[in-house]
């Protein structure tokens, strides 16, 4: 499970090139969808900068626009006004260097490709990488996510957790600078979730990438991120922007008893519960 943390990624150097500049930035972004009798504004003049190497988590009530935000950052959906910039360039279509991991992992994996062929999918576009090199990179990624024994299996033969590992490996095989993840673990059981959280943190640290993560789980957000942003609802704007500066690795048991952790948790929960129309005590079971 433990990955070498000493691997100094070749991508780490790029951070210096643009020191101080955000790797990904949303500036004055408005997003609206056509609705009955006009437009429905989902994101209203949102600004958000992601520094290189950040692990930024977006939380917020259901339907507040987290997925929408992530899709704008990925270039999967066009902004209504404002701009998303990746390393300074305006994003108009999915830029190479930004990859996306979907919540519905089962639907994001090519069921007709073997595990290895799924991983190298993003590399096949690149004429500069021959078959051997592709396989090499693919295998390397499979080792990193612990699926090296399954390279010839088909996705249907994998458990949910393994499928999501595969999706992550596929995304990372293209050496991206930014990894966007939309509730990647919310469809997994507790134990599998814990294992994958650890995996993503290991990868983030060893590869030096920037991660933008969406979750409903406040504990998960605080356990993983260097920064947590809470959105408010309709239309979405940034409600809370927290630096989470606990050192990694973080032990969930001891951290769970840290008063600063508990304070942050309460602040975030408050924001969400308020917007869901619940009082904090409604959480009692």
């Amino acid at each position, binding site marked *: 499970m433990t990955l070498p943390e000493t691997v100094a990624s070749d991508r780490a150097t790029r951070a210096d090139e643009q020191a101080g500049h955000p790797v990904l930035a949303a500036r004055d972004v408005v997003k609206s969808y056509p609705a009955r009798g006009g437009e429905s504004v989902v994101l209203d003049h949102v600004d958000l900068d992601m520094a290189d190497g950040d692990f930024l988590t977006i939380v917020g009530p259901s339907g507040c626009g987290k997925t929408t935000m992530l899709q704008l950052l990925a270039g999967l959906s066009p902004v209504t006004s404002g701009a998303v910039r990746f390393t300074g360039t305006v994003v108009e279509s999915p830029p190479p260097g930004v990859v996306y991991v*979907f919540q519905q992992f089962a639907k994001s994996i090519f069921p*007709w490709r073997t595990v290895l062929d799924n991983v190298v999918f993003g590399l096949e576009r690149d004429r500069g990488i021959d078959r051997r090199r592709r396989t090499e990179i693919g295998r390397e990624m499979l080792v990193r996510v612990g699926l090296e024994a399954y390279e010839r299996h088909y996705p249907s033969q994998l458990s949910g957790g393994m499928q999501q590992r595969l999706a992550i490996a*596929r995304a990372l095989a293209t050496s991206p600078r930014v990894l966007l993840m939309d509730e990647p673990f919310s469809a997994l059981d507790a134990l599998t979730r814990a294992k994958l959280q650890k995996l993503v943190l290991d990868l983030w640290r060893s590869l030096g990438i920037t991660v933008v993560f969406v979750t409903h789980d406040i504990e998960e957000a605080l356990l993983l991120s260097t920064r947590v942003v809470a959105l408010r609802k309709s239309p979405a704007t940034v409600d809370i922007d927290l630096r989470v500066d606990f050192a990694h690795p973080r032990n969930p048991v001891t951290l769970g008893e840290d008063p600063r952790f508990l304070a942050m948790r309460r602040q975030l929960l408050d924001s969400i519960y308020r917007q869901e129309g619940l009082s904090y005590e409604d959480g009692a079971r």
Partner: protein
Amino acid sequence: MIRQLSLRATGIGLIVLLVVAWELAVRLQLVDSPSIPSFSASVAALVGGITDGTLPVAMGETLSRVLVGYAVAVVAAVVVGALMGTSRFVYYLLEPVTELLRPIPSAAYIPVAILLLGVGSEMKIAVIALTSFFPVVLSTCGGVRSVDPILVDTGRTLGYGPLGRLRRIVLPSALPETLTGMRVALGIALIVGIVSEMLAGDTGIGYLILESQRIFQVPLMFAGIITLALVGYLLNLAFGRVESHLLRWRTA
């Protein structure tokens, strides 16, 4: 394993039973007509027809036309089906014509086809291609339309353009449905191939069946039908093999 085999044997058993019933019905003159030979006479004719090459040659002629027409149809139908599935314009453009032409039996347009293409193999291949086109086009279109958008978005974030996505995501994803249409079309292609031979020309198993009927050689006629059934069965089996190979990821 053995249980599996003996289970499979029941099917063969039923066929044997039916064949025995056929033989007895004719022998005991329960069915007594010059139109129905005994099974043994049909098998004798089958063996004779195979030995003297008549049946293999006729079947070969039919099959070669059927397979060419079918191949043409599949290629064209996958292209058109993909277009219909991805573009609403093309869909609404072609859907009504397709649906209008589909119910016309081939026997009705073969004379028109002869007029345009003559009585040779081209006409037969064209008719085979035309009739087997429809199932594939409709199933491919359906398959393409139901591709999961998440799969397509995955392709986008990994840098593929529309053509790359079509080739590497949309068509493979629609493959199971395309194959369903292709299986239906294969059966149709064979039948239309036979029918076209029954109207014009002097080659192929369809002609052989009709010809032996005309000259009261009903055992040979039945030998032709048996050949056709077996070849159809084997074609379908082969198709099934290819299909399960292509879709091995499903059962894996």
